[in-house]
C-alpha cells in the first residue's frame, strides 16, 4: 500500500474556496468550544476531586445569568453559521445565466454525458476551465447523486424530474466524480473523472473523434426522434395540427384547460411526453398517447433540446440549429435559437452510444 495521507481536498472550482472558508470557521468554533468543555471538565474533575470518602459537593442550584449566557452566545454564533451557510448554498445552487449546458443521464451504474456540440462520453466529463458549466441531469432508474469533491458540488439526481447544477472549474486537471447516493450493487463503481481543460484544448477535444459534428448533436438526434416517433404528424409547424405548435414554445407561459398557467420548461415538456393527460393545453383535446417506456431519459433530453431549438421565424421548414461550438450558449432556456443553416436531417443514423435505438 502506498502511503499517502491527504488531509484536505483539492480546490478546483470557484465555490470551493467559499465552502472551505466556512468549513474553517466551523472547525475553529468547534475546536474552541470542544477544548473549552474538555478543559473545564478536566480542570474541575481534578481540582474538585473527592478527597475524603464522605465529602459532598457544594450544592449550587444554578444561575439564570449563566443559563442566559450559554443560550444567547451559542445561538448568536449559530446564526452566523446559518446565514453564511445559506449564502454559500445559494451561490452553489443558483445557476448563472451564461452557463454552457451539458446533459447528464445517470443510470445503474454509469454517468452519461452529452455535449450540445455532439460529443458523448461515459464516466468522463471534459469541461473547459474558467467557464460556468450547467449540468441538466436526469436519472434513468434510481436516485443517484453527482458529486465532484474538488468542486465541492453535489446534487441528487431524482428519477422523474430534471436537476440542474453548475460549477466553474478553476484549475486544469483530472478530478474524481462519484455517485454519492446509494444506488445498488455497483454503487461504488459509478465513478468517473472530470477532466478540466484549457478552453482551446477543450475546443479541439470537442471537434475531434467520432461523436463530433452537427449530426451527433442532441438537436439532430432529437429531430430524428421527433420524426421517428411521428410527433410531427400532430405537432405541425403550421397551426394545422391536432397538437399545439411547439416552435417558440420553450420558456413561454402556457395556458391550460383548467385555467392554470405553467412555464414550458424541461420538466413540463418531459411530463407532457410521458404523461400527456397531466396538463392539457387550453383549446386542445386530450388525445395524445403516452410515451412512457418508449423513450429513454437520453432520448427525452434530445427531444427537449430539439423542441427548444425550434423557432417561430420559419415555420414552414424544419430548421436545425447547429450549435455554435464556441462560448455561445446554445439552447439556453427561454432563448429559442434563431439559427438559419439549412441542414436536412441526416439520412444515416450515427453510431450510437447507449440507448439510441428509437422505437419505430
Amino acid at each position, binding site marked *: 500500500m502506498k502511503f499517502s495521507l491527504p488531509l484536505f481536498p483539492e480546490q478546483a472550482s470557484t465555490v470551493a474556496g467559499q465552502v472551505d472558508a466556512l468549513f474553517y470557521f466551523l472547525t475553529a468554533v468547534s475546536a474552541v468550544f*470542544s477544548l473549552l468543555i474538555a478543559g473545564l471538565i478536566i480542570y*474541575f474533575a481534578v481540582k474538585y476531586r473527592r478527597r475524603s470518602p464522605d465529602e459532598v459537593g*457544594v450544592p449550587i442550584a444554578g444561575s439564570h445569568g449563566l443559563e442566559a449566557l*450559554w*443560550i444567547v452566545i451559542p445561538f448568536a454564533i449559530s446564526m452566523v*453559521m446559518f446565514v453564511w451557510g445559506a449564502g454559500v448554498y445559494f451561490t452553489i445552487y443558483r445557476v448563472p445565466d451564461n452557463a454552457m449546458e451539458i446533459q447528464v443521464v445517470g443510470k445503474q451504474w454509469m454517468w452519461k454525458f452529452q455535449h450540445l456540440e455532439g460529443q458523448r462520453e461515459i464516466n468522463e466529463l471534459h469541461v473547459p476551465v474558467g467557464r460556468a458549466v450547467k449540468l441538466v441531469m436526469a436519472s434513468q432508474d434510481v436516485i443517484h447523486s453527482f458529486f465532484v469533491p474538488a468542486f465541492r458540488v453535489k446534487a441528487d439526481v431524482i428519477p422523474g424530474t430534471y436537476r440542474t447544477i453548475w460549477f466553474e472549474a478553476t484549475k486544469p486537471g483530472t478530478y474524481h466524480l462519484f455517485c454519492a447516493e446509494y444506488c445498488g450493487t455497483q454503487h461504488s463503481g459509478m465513478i468517473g473523472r472530470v477532466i478540466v481543460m484549457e478552453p482551446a484544448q477543450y475546443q479541439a477535444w470537442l471537434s475531434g473523434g467520432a461523436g463530433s459534428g452537427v449530426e451527433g448533436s442532441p438537436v439532430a438526434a432529437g429531430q430524428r426522434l421527433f420524426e421517428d416517433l411521428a410527433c410531427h404528424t400532430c405537432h405541425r409547424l403550421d397551426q394545422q395540427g391536432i397538437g399545439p405548435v411547439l416552435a417558440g414554445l420553450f420558456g413561454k407561459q402556457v395556458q391550460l384547460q383548467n385555467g392554470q398557467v405553467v412555464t414550458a420548461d424541461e420538466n413540463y415538456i418531459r411530463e407532457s411526453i410521458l404523461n400527456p393527460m397531466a396538463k392539457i393545453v387550453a383549446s386542445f383535446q386530450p388525445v395524445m398517447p403516452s410515451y412512457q417506456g418508449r423513450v429513454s431519459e437520453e432520448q427525452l433530453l434530445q427531444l427537449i433540446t430539439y423542441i427548444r431549438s425550434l423557432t417561430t421565424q420559419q415555420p414552414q421548414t424544419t430548421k436545425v440549429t447547429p450549435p455554435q461550438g464556441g462560448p455561445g450558449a446554445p439552447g439556453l432556456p427561454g432563448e429559442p435559437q434563431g439559427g438559419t443553416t439549412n441542414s436536412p436531417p441526416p439520412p444515416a443514423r450515427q453510431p450510437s452510444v447507449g440507448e439510441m435505438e428509437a422505437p419505430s
Partner: protein
Amino acid sequence: MSAVAPILPTVPPPREHYLNANYGIRSWLLTTDHKRIALLYLVSVTLFFFLGGAFAVMIRLELLTPQGDLVQAETYNKLFSMHGIIMVFFFLVPVIPTVLGNFLVPLMIGARDLAFPRLNLASWYIFNLGGVCLLWSVLHGGVDTGWTFYTPYSSIYSNTYVIAAALGIFIAGFSSILTGLNFIVTIHFMRAPGLTWFRLPLFIWSNYANSLIMVLGTPVIAVTLLLVALERLFHIGVFDPDYGGDPVLFQHLFWFYSHPAVYIMVLPAMGVTSELIATFSRKLIFGYTFVAFASVAIAVLGFLVWGHHMFVTSQSMYSSMIFSFLSYAVAIPSAIKVFNWTATLYKGSVSYQTPMLYALGFIGLFTIGGMTGLFLAALGVDIHVTDTYFVIAHFHYIMVGGTVMAYLGGIHYWWPKMSGRMYPEGWAKLGALIIFVGFNLTFFPQFILGYLGMPRRYYAYPEEFQVLNVMSSAGASILGVGYILPMIYLIWSMRYGPVAEANPWPSTGLEWRTPSPPPTHNFAETPVVTWDAYEFVPPEKTRTAGQSPPHGQPA
C-alpha cells in the same frame, strides 16, 4: 498468609428478591415484573448488538484495502444495510428505554411496577417477533437497501428481502409505541406521594420526552414502510415516478420519524448522564429545570428538522433554509445540557469510578458529535459533506460515542442494583479506556475521509483514502475488544463479584433506597418523598451561583 484459621461465615437465609423469588424458564418468560422484563430485553438487545457488531467487523475488514476483495459487492451492501438496520432499530432505539428504563422508571418514582405490566411483557414479545422477521430476512440473504430504504431503489429495484426486513421494523415499532405509552402513563399516574414533577430524576424527564417521540413518531415509519411493501407488491405508485409517484416523498416520511429517532437514541442517554454526573460529583445538577425542559424542547423541535437530510435533493432552497435554521435551533437545548453538566462539576466532589468515566466520555464525544452537526446544518458545507464519511463519523459520535457510552455507564452504575453484585472496578476502568481510545481511532479519521470526499456505502475506494481507512479499521478492532470485555466481567461478576450494598455509591434516588437487588414489589412500603432530586445536602444549604457559600462547607 494468615495463620489464623479461616472463620466460616455464618450464612443467613438469603433474602428474597426479584431474581430468586422463583426459578425456571416459565417464571422468566411469563413474568410481568418490570425488572425481569428489563433483563429479558438486556439479553435480546445484547444479542442484536453483537450481531450488528459482527457486520461492522466485516465492513471494516473489507475497507482495509481500496479494492473490493473480501466479499462481493452485493454482500458488502447487505453488510452495511443489516448493520444499520439492526443497530438502529434493534439496538440503539430500544436499548436504554427498554433495559434501563424498564428497570428504573418504576423504581425511581417509587412505584411497584409500570402501569401496564402485561403490556410491558407483550412489548418484549413483539420486539422479538420483529427481530425474528428481520433474522429471517438475514438468513435468506438479507437486504441491500441501506437502513434508509430509499425509494425507488427499495420499492422497485432491489432484489433482496426488503419486505421481510420492513415487516420486522414495522412489528418492532409497536413494541416502541407500547413502551412509550407505558412510561407516559406510569410517570403521570404512579409517582410516589410527594414526588412532584420537579423532584423527578432527570432520567425520568428524558425518558418522558423520549416516550412522547416514540408514541408520536413511530407510527409514521410504520406507515412509510408499509407503503414501500405495498409498492413492491402492487406497484401502487406512491414513490415510483413511472406510476406518477414521488421518490422524495419517501425521504420526507422516513426522516419525519428517523430524525426524531436520533433523539430517541440520545435523550435517554442524556438522562443517564445527568444521573451519573450528579452521583459522582455528589452534587445537585446545575440548572435542573433548564436540563429538564431542554429534553422537552429537543423532543418538540426534533420533529421540525427532518428536511436537513434533504439539502441536496430537489427540495426548494427556501425550505432548506428553514430546516437549516431549525436545525441550529435544536442544537441549543443540547448545548444547554452540556454546559450544565460541566458546571455541575464545579465545586463538586468528583470521583472517577467507571460510570463517571463513561459519563465524562459521553460529554466529550457528544460535544464533538454535536459540533459536527453544526457543519451539516450549514447549507453550503452540507452539500459537500452529506452522503460522505463525514456524516458517518458525525452520527457515530452521537449514537456510539453518545448513546452506547451512556448506556455502558448506566449498566455499570446500576449493575449492583440489577444483579446484586459489584463489577470489578479495575477491569471496568480498563474497558472504558479501551472503548474511548478505540472509538476515537475508529471514527475521527472518518471526518477527514468525508471532507476529502469519500462517499459512504462504497465497497471499493480510491487508493489515497487507504491510510485513513486502515486507521479506522485498526480502531474498530480495539473498540471490539472494549465491547467484549464488559460482557465477560459483568457475567463473571454475577457469580463472583462482591455483594453490593443497597446504595454503594452512595446516591440519592429512590432506586437506591431499596435493597440490591430489589424485592419483587420494589419497596416494602410506598416511599413518601420529601426531598428534591440529587439532594446530597439539606436544601437550606443550597444556593444559586453568585451567592457566597454557606459556612462550614462541604456540608
